[in-house]
């Protein structure tokens, strides 16, 4: 928890309660945490704890679901099958078709891991999405990047893959020297970069929005006209909260869908 909460809550700082008591606007410092302890100089912070918890929960739920699978699923196995079928039918099949089923475990774990890391944003006490720290989306993207380049080299051969990646289809030969650098750059650098920035920026802005309106509701709560504004602020906070429920799911969905799309591009050239 940052100093900002301490100032606003413990200090009892409200609208017009004190001349020097301004709105404590949340900033980028909300995304930096003091390490709880250090392991060989490496600080263990709240986002790391959230990430580890997410991984453990995903592992535990799917392990419990398929520990003793039955023909007629009961209890938690229903939940596990529902999750896997949702990823298969909504994300994998539209992009890869049934031949891509061997990538299902990868996509399922990716989807639920990201979704859970996003969801911590909405859970009281935790209330922080690990994916709003750029290192987490970047690390996930690195995994995806290595995976799709490896699959591409395996299925099209190293030279064939890079040839397909550099030569756009349908373009006349004389313009190729100008266009193939763009194609290569967008496939190798822009793609992974946008993939990580999309997730990171969405979660960061969502967290900031929630902070702005929740702190405003607290700050404006006083026996003045501010009470009215506090009520409005709280309603907006609730609306943003509902929106964020959707966005946590949507961002995990988009990340996984694009991963499936990149894999399908690596399996067979679009040309």
């Amino acid at each position, binding site marked *: 928890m940052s100093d900002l909460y301490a100032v606003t809550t413990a200090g009892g700082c409200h609208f017009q309660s004190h001349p020097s008591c301004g709105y404590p606007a949340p900033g980028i410092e909300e995304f930096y945490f003091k390490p709880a302890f250090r392991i060989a100089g490496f600080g263990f912070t709240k986002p790391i704890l959230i990430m580890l918890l997410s991984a453990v929960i995903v592992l535990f739920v799917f392990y419990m679901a398929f520990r003793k699978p039955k023909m007629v699923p009961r209890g938690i196995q229903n939940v596990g099958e529902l999750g896997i079928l949702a990823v298969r039918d909504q994300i994998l099949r*539209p*992009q890869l078709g049934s031949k891509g089923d061997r990538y299902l475990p990868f996509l399922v774990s990716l989807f639920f891991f990201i979704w859970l890391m996003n969801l911590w944003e909405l859970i009281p006490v935790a209330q922080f999405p690990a994916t709003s720290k750029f290192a987490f989306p970047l690390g996930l993207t690195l995994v995806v990047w290595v995976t799709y380049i490896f699959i591409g080299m395996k299925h099209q051969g190293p030279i064939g893959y890079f040839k397909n990646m550099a030569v*756009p*289809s*349908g*373009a*006349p030969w004389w*313009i190729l020297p*100008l*266009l193939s*650098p*763009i*194609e290569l*750059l*967008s*496939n190798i*650098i*822009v*793609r992974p970069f*946008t993939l990580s920035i999309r997730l990171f920026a969405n979660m960061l802005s969502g967290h900031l929005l929630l902070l702005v309106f929740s702190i405003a509701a607290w700050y404006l709560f006083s026996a003045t006209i501010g009470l009215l504004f506090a009520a409005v602020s709280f309603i907006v906070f609730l609306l943003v909260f509902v929106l964020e429920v959707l966005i946590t799911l949507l961002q995990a969905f988009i990340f996984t*869908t*694009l991963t499936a*799309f*990149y894999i*399908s*591009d690596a399996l067979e050239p*679009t*040309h």
Partner: protein
Amino acid sequence: MPREGTGWSIVSYIVGGMLLYGGIGWLVGRWTHIEALTGVGIVLGIGLSLALIIFRFTRPSR
């Protein structure tokens, strides 16, 4: 039928074109001391990316 990733591919082409030719323009501009070349490069990059998108996605290629 276009697949779901097509829209994002188009975005990454435009960003890629801007970065590449904007970067080349910036380098040449530094060398020749003509600062406007960065802008020229960015516009040229967008134009070339649009050409690439048209070639790639509007003509039947399969």
